[in-house]
């Protein structure tokens, strides 16, 4: 893991521990968006995973049916992730990060399907954000381990920033008509 990526993830984890305890859904979502900036530049799976996990947690907490001791357990696990990463124990850090959702499923059976859905949607949303930052569709899909079918379906409905075109509408249309003898 690059040093810069590690520092950024540690910062995100530190802030997320507090925000999860306080149930600050809006701030968690913003924190997740910030994590995507790093993910866009370095595209390391660890950055992406953190962004996805934080966003998914925000959606789950937003649902409002989570018991208090669940919040304590998640916070504890995030703290553990922080400690492991601080000590450069990358493998155990990743295991612990993955186990956060195992924790949710184990806590309440009915959440399992919901959590899987939330996680998938979080990945698609973050993939769309990567695309929005200028990373290509296929590359964004690859980083999030998504199919382009899923990502295009979502990204097309999100308002994407446009940059100045190198070829005008007129000339592209003229060219394509020429190809078909129209």
């Amino acid at each position, binding site marked *: 893991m690059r040093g810069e990526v590690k520092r950024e993830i540690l910062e995100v984890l530190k802030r997320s521990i507090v925000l999860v305890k306080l149930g600050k859904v809006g701030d968690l979502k913003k924190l997740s968006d910030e994590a995507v*900036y790093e993910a866009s530049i370095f595209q390391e799976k660890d950055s992406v995973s953190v962004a996805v996990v934080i966003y998914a947690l925000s959606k789950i907490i937003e649902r409002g049916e989570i018991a208090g001791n669940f919040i304590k357990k998640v916070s504890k696990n995030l703290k553990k992730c922080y400690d492991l990463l601080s000590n450069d124990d990358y493998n155990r850090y990743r295991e612990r990060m993955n186990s956060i959702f195992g924790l949710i499923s184990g806590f309440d059976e009915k959440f399992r399907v919901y959590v899987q859905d939330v996680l998938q949607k979080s990945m698609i949303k973050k993939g769309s954000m990567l695309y929005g930052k200028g990373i290509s569709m296929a590359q964004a899909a690859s980083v999030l381990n998504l199919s382009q*079918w899923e990502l295009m379906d979502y990204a097309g409905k999100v308002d994407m920033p446009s940059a100045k075109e190198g*070829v005008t*509408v007129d000339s592209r249309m003229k060219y394509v008509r020429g190809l078909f003898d129209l």
Partner: protein
Amino acid sequence: MKSLDFHKALIFDTGPLISLTMNNLLWTLDPLKNSFKGEFIITPKVYKEVIEKPLRTRKFKFEALQVLKYIRRGVITVFDDLEITNLAEKLNDLANRCFIARGHPITIVHFAEVQVVACAMLTGAQAIVIDERTMRKLIEAPHELRKLLQHKLRTKIKEDKRCLREFKELVGDIKVLRSLELMSVAYDMGILDQYMPKLPDIADANRELIESVFWGLKLSGCAISERDLNKAVRVVLKHKRTG
């Protein structure tokens, strides 16, 4: 997969096939190909993304089968050649070293997208058909792409001028089309007339039809700004009137 010589070809990326399928417009490839009198080509990587991946899941499986039908019928051909892969590796390396953030090159495009470009270069294809924005910008307006990256990543982006120059020299004047431009041709040819709404004013009906097709494609991932989409509608309608 066959190795073919063809005098006229369009090389498709994954995106346009997805956009067309999601809008029930895949069938237009048949009459379009007849009119084009050439080949519609995809690379093995595109085949893997469009067909193989969704066939292993439940979601988009039927959509993949729809595309597969057109491959089986020969409307779309999968083309593979070692030279294409070799060239794609070179292009991929260049493309993903063009822009630097905080001393690190940013990976902006995927090998599969680069392979589409390489295929077009080696086959002398008339254009690549790609709906996503980044590869198109890299080919047509790399400085604009740098500005976009800089703005959206909120960090200074430097260009590796040597890589950009080499990439540009290699790809040359390759033309880029989207599913939207192909559907403008379909509209011009009257292929879409069966969808014409019944409105008192024929001009309104034409506008409704072409706008709905273009918006359908845009909402399915074809990268075009609203401003350019409206312009495209005007261009198409004007051509229809003056034809």
